[in-house]
């Protein structure tokens, strides 16, 4: 405990260095912006802006991106409430009660509740993060390649078991990502693999950033263009300080839903497939079930805004836990952060705590600061962001396209990659129209090389004996949980069928 506090205070000192503090402010602002623009979420912001962070040292870069992740969770509520369109998928549940509140002219109260709840969610989850991360990392140091591989199988199994998408399509998406990661030179034998049409450029493989920007930059913008048709409609919001303060006092007195949401969000957030969106929905459902007045939900209950907002913020911190300690991202956004860490020359995984303590604790310290900064910025800038929301999409779209193209070029210095990005973006858009989940593919392309290496290392060390995965206790546990997760949807379906039979 003492060590944690000591390390944490070091982290705080780092977070207050001028550059890092500036990064926190910049990240929060950028996050609020991408969060509140419909169609752009934390993933898109992190993917598009990652190349820009090569300007600064890794610690400042991850502080910026983590703050952006945070800010986006706050920002999502702004458009959910004022536009009735979730600013990011994570803020879907906020619309349920935020929209009716705005229609009743209480948009400022809803915005305030969202900000306060987000702050509670963020704070609770960072404290949990600080407590859980060091022991988990210490435990993970015992992992060999077998355990690493089993853990990755587990990560992918969560998509199949809990993702809620069509199962064959989810599997397809995971495998597609893994295969794309394998393009280029084989890491063990050095043979070139899958060089289509003998294109020399493919020997370097497809970078994860190319896929991430393609899907989350280009594909997502095309998707948004389609779903909004460039048109949005907005509610008027009156904001005055006196009313804000009055609401604040009200809120502190009688809302409990954010606390439940915070704990729930944190733990759901650590699961790779779950993340902030389901956490927010679950938290909304829970607070509705346990509310004294469940009928008022959906008609403008403040608790219905507070619960999901607390959960999605908590989940964003939660998803960083496996990323920092195990090297397995807890969400698409952290998958991109993880890829970024590899580009910055860091090795994600349990060793990060011992090899780069400055980086880890700087990040954790900055999360505390960023949380406080974002809540202040959020409340102070609500009027400005409402203006920003009126910005037409035909201005934002070309800017984002330009950032995508040049961002990819700046990371790899090859025009070829920008072509691949456009291709993947359009492909991702078409797949998404057919309800193929794209997040597993992004996770898979980041984890692909690691998964293949750990699989082959374990097979080489066991001389081709597959039982090596089930004779080691930790990897056996992971594989058993993974199997349970994969079979979960099937069991669920059989139970439902039996019930239907017994009814008829």
């Amino acid at each position: 405990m003492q060590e944690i506090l000591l390390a944490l205070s070091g982290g705080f000192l780092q977070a207050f260095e001028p550059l890092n503090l500036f990064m926190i402010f910049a990240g929060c602002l950028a996050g609020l912006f991408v969060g509140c623009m419909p169609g752009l979420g934390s993933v898109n912001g992190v993917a598009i802006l990652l190349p820009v962070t090569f300007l600064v040292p890794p610690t400042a870069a991850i502080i910026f991106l983590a703050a952006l992740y945070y800010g986006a969770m706050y920002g999502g509520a702004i458009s959910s409430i004022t536009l009735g369109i979730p600013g990011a998928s994570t803020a879907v549940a906020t619309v349920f009660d935020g929209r009716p509140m705005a229609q009743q002219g209480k948009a400022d109260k809803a915005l305030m509740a969202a900000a306060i709840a987000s702050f509670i969610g963020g704070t609770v989850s960072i404290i949990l993060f600080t407590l859980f991360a060091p022991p988990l990392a210490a435990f993970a140091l015992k992992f060999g390649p077998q355990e690493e591989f089993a853990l990755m199988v587990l990560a992918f199994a969560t998509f199949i078991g809990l993702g809620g998408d069509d199962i064959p399509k989810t599997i397809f998406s995971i495998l597609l990502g893994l295969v794309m990661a394998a393009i280029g030179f084989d890491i063990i034998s050095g043979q070139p693999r899958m060089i289509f049409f003998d294109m020399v450029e493919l020997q370097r493989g497809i970078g994860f950033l190319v896929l991430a920007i393609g899907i989350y930059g280009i594909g997502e913008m095309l998707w948004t263009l389609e779903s909004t048709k460039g048109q949005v409609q907005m509610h008027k919001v009156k904001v005055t300080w006196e009313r804000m303060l009055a609401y604040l006092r009200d809120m502190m007195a009688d809302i409990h839903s954010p606390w439940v949401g915070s704990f729930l969000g944190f733990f759901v957030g650590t699961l790779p497939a779950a993340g902030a969106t389901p956490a927010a929905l679950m938290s909304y459902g829970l607070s509705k079930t346990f509310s004294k007045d469940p009928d008022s939900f959906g008609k403008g209950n403040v608790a219905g805004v507070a619960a999901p907002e607390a959960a999605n913020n908590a989940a964003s911190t939660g998803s960083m836990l496996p990323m920092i300690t195990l090297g397995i991202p807890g969400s698409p956004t952290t998958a991109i952060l993880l890829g970024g860490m590899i580009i910055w020359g860091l090795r994600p995984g349990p060793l990060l705590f011992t090899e780069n303590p400055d980086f880890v604790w700087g990040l954790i310290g900055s999360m505390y600061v960023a949380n406080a900064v974002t809540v202040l910025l959020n409340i102070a800038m609500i009027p400005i962001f409402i203006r920003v929301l009126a910005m037409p999409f035909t201005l934002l779209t070309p800017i984002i396209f330009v950032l995508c193209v040049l961002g990819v070029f700046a990371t790899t210095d090859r025009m070829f990659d920008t072509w691949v990005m456009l291709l993947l973006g359009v492909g991702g858009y078409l797949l998404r129209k057919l309800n193929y989940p794209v997040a597993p593919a992004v996770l898979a392309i980041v984890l692909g090389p690691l998964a293949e290496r750990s699989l082959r290392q374990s097979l080489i060390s066991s001389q081709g004996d597959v039982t090596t995965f089930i004779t080691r206790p930790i990897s056996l546990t992971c594989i058993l949980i993974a199997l349970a997760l994969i079979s979960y949807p099937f069991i669920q379906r059989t139970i439902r069928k039996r019930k239907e039979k017994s009814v008829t």
Partner: protein
Amino acid sequence: MGFATLALSLGLMWNVWSDGLRIGWVEGRGPGAGMWPFWLSLGMAGASVATIIRWFQRKTAESRSTEPYIAPETLFLVGVSAVSLLVLLILMNVIGTYLSLMVFMLFYVRVIGKHGWAMTSAMVVGTPVFVYLLFEVALTKYLPKGLPIFEEGFLWIDNFRWQYF
């Protein structure tokens, strides 16, 4: 219903196309380097086949949907955006990043967005300046300048920058 069959054929095309790829990967790969991608792609084939079967069984939501795969007006907006990006990428190799960015902005803001000339000119001038400052000055990346004749023209700006800043 016509649209539903369109969606069906597109879905099938996608699947068949990806199946076709897989056949190529199997041959000539030893169990060593090819093992990982081969088994993965086999799994992909399996997942695609499962999707096709579920399609015919009408189990997936898309197979029951009667909505058009892409509505005509969406096709226009999305298609124009995608094509304009393609043109941007082609132009970057010919007339260089900055000029093509200006053309792209002019087209997108003025023609698609139908914004006024003030906004258009601000975007057309502002974007290249911002890009130059961010990528060339701050990140020291040499962005593509296109054919030599355009590249030489750009050297004037670089000379100016190195001389005075």
